[in-house]
Structures are given as structure tokens and as C-alpha cells.
């Protein structure tokens, strides 16, 4: 009988507990706990020991020096500013390029649409690192692409301004360009999803009532695609602001982005409390756009 009771218990409670418990426990152990350790680490004191931190002893238990430095040291403020500017510019460019592309995708025939959507998604599956690398090959001083740009520049401007090559690598311009390249699919897909749902009858009605095409776009299409714009914008902005790989490979070392600063503080300077404090501040800055994003998500779910 006890076997029967056990299996009844399993059916009623144990099964659900297992289903919920296993992933829950995993995320608490390997995601939440490490994150809480980082938050605690941000108020620890750097020591020359291994591991290089301490709470208490001759040091204060809660040491806010790292936060003080984030808010006062120009290096960190500049890095935050560079990150946010680069991410914002990349986001706006992605929107300007991605919106007409997404709209175009809704206007082509069904057969073409599937092929083109596949071509938008394909880069998702190929290595991120290699996509950045592909642009390193394009931007280098001796590359055919840089040669093409150099020739066009020299053709267009007076002789005094002629250059031997266009300085592209190791600039903020390169960072933004490669960010737009790698994150553009994140913008196109949610925009496409929200534009595809629109009823073409509304467009036709507006046209019949005498609206010009750009008025139809402004008054009918654009307002209805705002959830897609917000979703795409956040999907570009959030990873771009914390980006490490792109600025490390094509960025300007003298104006680092925040992701690179965290990594350098941690690995080179071995200042764990400092790296953690910068990380916490970055996350706090990210919370605002994330809340905005989920607010819009909830709203668009509700209106469906």
C-alpha cells in the first residue's frame, strides 16, 4: 500500500515539485547566487591576498570606496558616456535601416518573404565573433573596401584633403558600424513581427480618404508599430551598451566602453570590488530601459 501512497503523492505533489524545482534550483544556484556575490563584492575591500578581497578584519565590512570612485573618477564617467552614446547611435541607425527593411519584407511576395527572412535570421546562427572579424577584414588599411572609400573620398574632395587610407579601425565609428551590423537582425525581426500583423485594409481606407502615402505611413503604420520599435530598440541597446567583444577588437583603446573596463579591472588590475561596483552601476542603468521594455510588452500583449 505504501507504494500506492507514494505514487499518489508523486502524482499530486512530487511531479510538479520536480518540474518546478529542478530549473528553479539551478538558476538560484548558478545565476542568482553568483550575482548576489557580485553585489556583495562591490562593497568589499581589495587586498593583496588570494582571492583578492576581504570583508571586515582591519577593513570596513561595507566599503563604499568603489562606488565613490565610479561617481567621481572621470575614467568611469567617460566610459559610461561612451557606452551609452555608442549604443544609442547604433540603436537609432538600426532603426533607420531596419524599419524600411522590415516594411519591405511585408510587401514582397510570400515566396520571396520566406527566403529573405531566412537570410535575416541566418547571421544569428553564424558566429558572432566571425561576423565582427569579417568587418576587421573590410576596414583594414589595405583592404579593397577601404581602398574604395579612399578613392571616392579623394575623388570628391579638394587635393589638400586627400588621404592615403580612411582611418576606420580602432575608432568609435568602427564600433558603431560593427554594432549596427551584428545587431540589425534584432531590430528587423520584432519590427517585422509587429508590421506583419497590421491590416492592409486600414492603409487602403486612409488612401481612399485622400491621404498621401507618407501621411498613411505617419498616421496609420508608424503608430501601430511602436511596440515593435520599442522591442527592437531595447534588443539592440541593452547588449550594445554592455558589449565587450566589439570594442576590444575594433574600438579605440583610449576611450574604452564600460564592458571592457569591467573586464580590465577584473583581470588586469585584479580589483574585484571595483569591477563589481562598475557592473552593479551598469545593471542599475539597464533596469530603466528593461522596465520600459516589459511595460510595452505587457501593453501589446494585453491589446492582442
Amino acid at each position, binding site marked *: 500500500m505504501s507504494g500506492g501512497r507514494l*505514487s499518489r503523492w508523486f*502524482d499530486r505533489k512530487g*511531479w*510538479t515539485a520536480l*518540474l518546478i524545482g529542478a*530549473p528553479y534550483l*539551478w*538558476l538560484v544556484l*548558478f*545565476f542568482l547566487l*553568483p*550575482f548576489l*556575490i*557580485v553585489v556583495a*563584492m562591490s562593497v568589499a575591500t581589495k587586498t593583496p591576498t588570494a*582571492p583578492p578581497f576581504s570583508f571586515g578584519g582591519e577593513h570596513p565590512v561595507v566599503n563604499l570606496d568603489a562606488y565613490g570612485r565610479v561617481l567621481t573618477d572621470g575614467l568611469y564617467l567617460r566610459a559610461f558616456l561612451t557606452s551609452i552614446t555608442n549604443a544609442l547611435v547604433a540603436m537609432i541607425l538600426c532603426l533607420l*535601416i531596419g524599419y*524600411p*527593411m522590415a516594411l*519591405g*519584407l511585408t*510587401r*514582397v511576395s510570400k515566396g520571396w518573404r520566406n527566403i*529573405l527572412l*531566412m*537570410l535575416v535570421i*541566418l*547571421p544569428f*546562427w*553564424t*558566429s*558572432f*565573433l*566571425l*561576423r565582427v*572579424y*569579417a568587418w576587421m*577584414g*573590410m576596414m*583594414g588599411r*589595405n583592404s*579593397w573596401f577601404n581602398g574604395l572609400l579612399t578613392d571616392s573620398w579623394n575623388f570628391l574632395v579638394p587635393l589638400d584633403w586627400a588621404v592615403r587610407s580612411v582611418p576606420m579601425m580602432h575608432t568609435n565609428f568602427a564600433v558603431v558600424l560593427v554594432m549596427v*551590423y551584428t545587431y*540589425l537582425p534584432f531590430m528587423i525581426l520584432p519590427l517585422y513581427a509587429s508590421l506583419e500583423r497590421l491590416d*492592409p485594409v486600414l492603409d*487602403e481606407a486612409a488612401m481612399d480618404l485622400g491621404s498621401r502615402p507618407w501621411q498613411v505611413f505617419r498616421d496609420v503604420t508608424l503608430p501601430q508599430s511602436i511596440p515593435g520599435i520599442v522591442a527592437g530598440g531595447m534588443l539592440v541597446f*541593452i547588449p550594445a551598451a*554592455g*558589449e*565587450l*567583444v566589439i570594442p576590444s*577588437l575594433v574600438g579605440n583603446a583610449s576611450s574604452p566602453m564600460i*564592458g571592457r573596463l*569591467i*573586464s580590465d579591472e577584473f583581470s588586469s588590475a585584479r580589483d574585484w570590488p571595483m*569591477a563589481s561596483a562598475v*557592473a552593479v552601476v551598469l*545593471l542599475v542603468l*539597464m533596469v530603466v530601459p528593461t522596465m520600459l521594455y*516589459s511595460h510595452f510588452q505587457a501593453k501589446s500583449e494585453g491589446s492582442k
Partner: protein
Amino acid sequence: MNRRPVFLITVLCFGFAFFYIPILSMIVYSFNASRLATVWGGFSTRWYVSLLSNDQVINALVLSLKIAFVSASVATILGTMAGITLARFTKFRGRMVFSGLVTAPLVMPEVITGISSLIFFIILADWIGWPGQRGFTTITLAHITFSMVFVTIIVQSRMLQMDRTIEEAAMDLGSRPWQVMKDITLPVISPAIVSGWLLAFTISLDDVVITSFTTGPGSTTLPLLIWSKVKLGVTPDINALATLMVVTVGIGVVAAGIILNRAERRRLIEERMAHERDG
């Protein structure tokens, strides 16, 4: 609506040129005979030949595939459980925290996930002596954690589209919850589980940042190897390696897309025929 959207088509053409020209350029230059990666010096396959005899690359590839296989499999199991949980159990204590935990790794910058995992593993080793040496185990654990949430999202959205009446019918006929899961729910959501596994596999295979923090001496995955070489600049052998990777993945994705598409179409046809028979 009969006007041809000339402007939109033009932007699409430029957009796709922007997407694919850098990759095509890289592929072309992988056949460059010259040692200077960006100056054309005639056609050659020498970089491919030297790549195939490079043990470092082969070892890194094998390690990456092992980690990706193990982490994708565990992530798929945990992620599927979480996806089912979020779609089916709308009320349980701690659901808010749970759905937060599933979303957070998606928006967390990789650098932060990386250092928090590393600090966690170091402190853990300091306290309980495990994990002793960082490498395969620590990389795999970190990969499972951040790729399982992608599986969760895919499975959850499939579950929400699913017709619940079949499950309820099986319950009414006396099936036990785990039998319903095994015989009905899992077969129905199996395409989502397969795409979840594939996504987790490629995410693991591709990761640089989190791997670079959780790796240890002697454990160099393929992306880490490429990362360390690429930092020094563009080289023809990396062009060749990149070409092989991009072409392999490209063919794989297109093939998978076609297969999944066919399976989905067949399912729809079967469903319709079943309906017609009944009606």
C-alpha cells in the same frame, strides 16, 4: 497597394548587401595565396591544407563540440521543464521570482555573467574545494545556465499555442500526469525542443565572453582560440577557418529550416485531413 514599393525594395537590396558583402569578402580572401591577409596574391587553398594539419585547431574544435553537446542537452532538459512550468502553472509560490530568473540572464551583459560565474567558482573552490581546476566543468556549467533560458522561451511560447483539450481528455481517461507529459505534451512540443537544443548548441559553440572568464589552463575552445588570434589582426588562416565555420553552419541552418518546414506542413495537412474525416 498595387504600386511597387521602389524605395523599400532598394533599402532591402542595400541591407542584404550590407549583411553579406563582408562575409563574401572574407570567403574570397580565404583563398588568397598571399600571406598578407588583405592584399590579393592569387588563388590558393594552402590555408585550408595547413588548417587541417593544425592540431591546436582540431583540439579546440573537439573541446568546443563536447562542451556544446553536454551543455545543450542539460540546458534543453532544464529549459523545457522551466518552459512547461511557466506555461502551465500560473500560480505557485515564487512564480514572480522564477520568471524573473528566467528573463534576467537574457538582459544581463555577458561580461557581468562572466565575472559573477568566475567569482562564484573561485569562492566555491576556496570553501568546499570544488571545482578544483577550471575548464570543461566550469565552462559547461556556465553555458547551461545562460543557454537554458533560451530553450525556456521557445518551449513556453509553443506550450501557450498548444491545444490543451487533448491533455485534459487524457487526464479524464485516467492517465497520470507524467504519462500525459510523456505521451502527449512532449511529442506535441518536440519541434520546439529540437529548435531549443539547436539554439543552445550554437550559443555554446559561439560563446567567447563567458567562456573566457570560466576557462582554465589548457581548456581552449575554438572561439577562444580565434579570439586570441583575431586580437592580433586579420590572418589568412583565420579567414579559411571562418569560411569553413560559416559555410557549415549556413548549410546546416538552411537544411534544418527546410526539414522543419516540411514537417510542419505535413502536420498541418494531417490535421486538416483528420478534421475532414471527422466532420
